[in-house]
């Protein structure tokens, strides 16, 4: 049969199927390309998704084709494909592993690899722990003024120090993420070769993408307003609110350095933070419970990278709550212990953010955006 006009040639490599198998895409061994997954996918109704075609590209080892395909990011794992697949090839988990594969390969210097393998993950964990502990112990001023009579988190670590570290980490995350996004753009641009679009379409679809990121309506469309949807939304908004709270507090401190007097602004920030914290706890605990019970389609399998992200946000949410409680109850030991764990967990989360599952926060909307703008066959 003659090649379709849209078909392109890819360089084939064995690495793709081999790596996908490690990431949980073992269904690629079973798939016989019937196309049931594409046809049953609720996203097919909205836009061009290519579940079967992506699986074919993985089977063949078309690396650039796999990395340039936004299909995995259109998937919210409703599980319909897993349920209807006549070969039990679990296309949902193939999409999941493809997302991980893309995160790894978009990351600069392939640093993402560190977070998708037990051994290197343990190593990264040890190194990060050592840096974190050293930081707390050695950094001038830290721990030296620990107030054991009164729960004061600023005696654990000065607010200026926290903010200084925070700024550095922020700069690191932004730079690395931008570099990763650039890689992603390159791959997708290449896959959508020849698709030129004007700026107005980019802007129009940007609004859709932002709306989708804020409310994740596709997840709701697929299975109705489920607890799963609400929990996912809670985690997202929990992050937004806690981040907003931290940001507000930070800006206030910049504007009025040295003031310890609380103002309406700081109260507002605190309330935002508390609401965000509660949302985070609700969402993350929901997912931990279901992933432990394995009682939902997406939760049948949970891999180490999934646990890494999920357990970190759970620990951060719970220790954050305990720290706040400790301060209000004036319980120094509880406060310092949970605050210490909290800070370490935040440190792990931020350092690994551009490479871990956290990165879906940025890749998913971007991939949707690209796919919307360049809509068509790849």
């Amino acid at each position: 049969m003659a090649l379709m006009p849209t078909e392109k040639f890819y360089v084939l490599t064995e690495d793709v199927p081999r790596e996908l198998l490690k990431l949980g895409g073992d269904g690629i061994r079973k798939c016989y390309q019937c196309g049931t997954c594409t046809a049953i996918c609720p996203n097919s109704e909205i836009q061009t998704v290519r579940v079967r075609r992506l699986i074919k590209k993985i089977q063949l080892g078309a690396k650039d084709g796999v990395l340039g395909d936004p299909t995995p990011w259109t998937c919210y794992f409703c599980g319909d494909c897993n349920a209807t697949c006549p070969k039990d090839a679990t296309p949902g988990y193939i999409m999941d592993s493809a997302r991980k594969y893309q995160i790894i390969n978009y990351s600069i210097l392939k640093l993402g690899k560190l977070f998708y393998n037990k051994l290197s993950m343990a190593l990264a964990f040890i190194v990060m722990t050592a840096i974190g502990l050293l930081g707390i112990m050695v950094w001038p001023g830290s721990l030296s003024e620990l107030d054991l009579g009164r729960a004061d988190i600023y005696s654990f670590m000065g607010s200026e120090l926290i903010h200084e570290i925070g700024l550095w980490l922020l700069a690191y995350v932004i730079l690395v993420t931008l570099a990763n996004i650039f890689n992603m753009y390159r791959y997708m641009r290449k896959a959508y070769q020849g698709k030129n679009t004007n700026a107005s379409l980019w802007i129009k679809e940007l609004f859709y993408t932002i709306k989708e990121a804020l409310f994740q309506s596709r997840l709701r469309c697929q299975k109705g307003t489920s607890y799963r949807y609400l929990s996912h939304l809670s985690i997202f908004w929990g992050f937004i609110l806690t981040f907003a709270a931290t940001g507000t507090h930070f800006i206030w401190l910049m504007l009025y350095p040295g003031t310890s007097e609380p103002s309406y602004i700081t109260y507002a920030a605190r309330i935002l933070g508390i609401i965000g914290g509660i949302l985070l706890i609700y969402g993350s605990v929901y997912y931990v419970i279901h992933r432990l019970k394995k009682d939902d389609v997406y939760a049948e399998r949970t891999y180490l990278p999934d646990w890494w992200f999920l357990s970190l946000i759970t620990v951060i949410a719970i220790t954050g709550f305990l720290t706040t409680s400790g301060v209000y109850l004036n319980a120094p030991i509880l406060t310092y212990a949970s605050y210490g764990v909290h800070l370490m967990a935040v440190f792990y989360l931020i350092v690994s953010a551009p490479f871990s599952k956290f990165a879906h926060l940025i890749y998913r909307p971007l991939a949707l955006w690209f796919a919307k703008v360049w809509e068509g066959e790849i």
Partner: protein
Amino acid sequence: MKPVAVIGGGIAGIQAALDLANQGIKVYLIERTPSIGGRMAQLDKTFPTLDCSMCILTPRMVEVARNKNIELLTYCDLIDLKGSVGNFKLKVRKKPRYVDVDKCTGCMVCFKYCPSKVPDEYNEGMSERKAIYIPFPQSVPLKATIDAEHCLWFQKGICRNCEKFCPAKAINYDQKPEDIELDVAAVIFATGYELIMDAEFLREQYGYSRYANVYTNLEYERIVSATGPTGGEIIRRSDKAHPKRIAFIQCVCSRDARINPNCSSICCMASVKEAILTKEHMHDVDVTVFYMDLRAFGKGYQEFYDRAKQEFGIRFVRSKPAKIVEDPSTKNLIVYYEDTQSSKFVKEEFDMVVLAVGVRPVKPDSFIPMSEDSFAQLKDPIMEPVSSPIPGIFVIGMLSGSKDIPDSVVQAGAAAMKASLIAVSH
């Protein structure tokens, strides 16, 4: 020289019985339904020659009835099998027909007066027969049978119309099941197949039995057949209209890890044949076959498939549809599929959908060992393709693995040869 028993009166069993009997060996041909003929009797045409199925089958059925060496035991169940090669003891239960077969002339007068209507198995339940019936007009033996489960006399103690009107006075309500013992040298099992109809996804995904215009391939075979419920006119169940767009979906309940991983091996050519028959019945019809791999492996099959595409203009789409949704107003069917050759997601409307439902063997209780693939176990699939691991027992036709009519006939001959070697030496 001892006799041989053949279990199952389909084309495989018929052929095995004839091949043995023509060597001068006595054969007991045991069939559980009132007539021999089996699945082949339900088919309209056969692939790849488009021969009329009945026209090539009935001469052999009649030959069975006429052959002095064949003792035909229809409406009988095998209930016990003991012994070993050369010396098998079979216990066969003759189910009561409540009709004296020596007197019954097959005049069918009784049908007219029987008030009890029953879905007709021969037409896959799409028409009705009476509680006293002959499965189909060419039945061998052409003797009536009373279906006690639906007979008013047996169920409610009323009626007895057939007795009143039978010109031959053949009705006998007092018949009892009768067990007979057979002493045979070898046994050939040819129990055939049934469609896998109990899979939940047939109903859920493809809407079979929920949507009026979704058919199985065997139902469709009856519809295109001149002896079928519509007299060979292709009309929809919902509104009796002629469909303009018909879809055939392959590999339903076969090659499916959830239900049956086997390839049923007959459906590709059966659907190609049915697609061609459709085109021969109606010229203004679009026929689409959804297939994943079209397995045209036999003699003349590839040519048959090529003719379907080139001569008859049948569209073949490489895809397995994911679901079917019915339009409630028109009862048309919207098929969701991805055309895997162009990677396009398509929702296409059809007037009628025919599912090529997979097959499984009819298991002859626990008389023979079955293998993990749900078919009968073979002594050696390469060198002993008709032998069961038990010496003296042979498994042929659909029972030992999906196969079409020519292959079943070949196996029947092979098993007959093997069985005759045993029969002659005992």
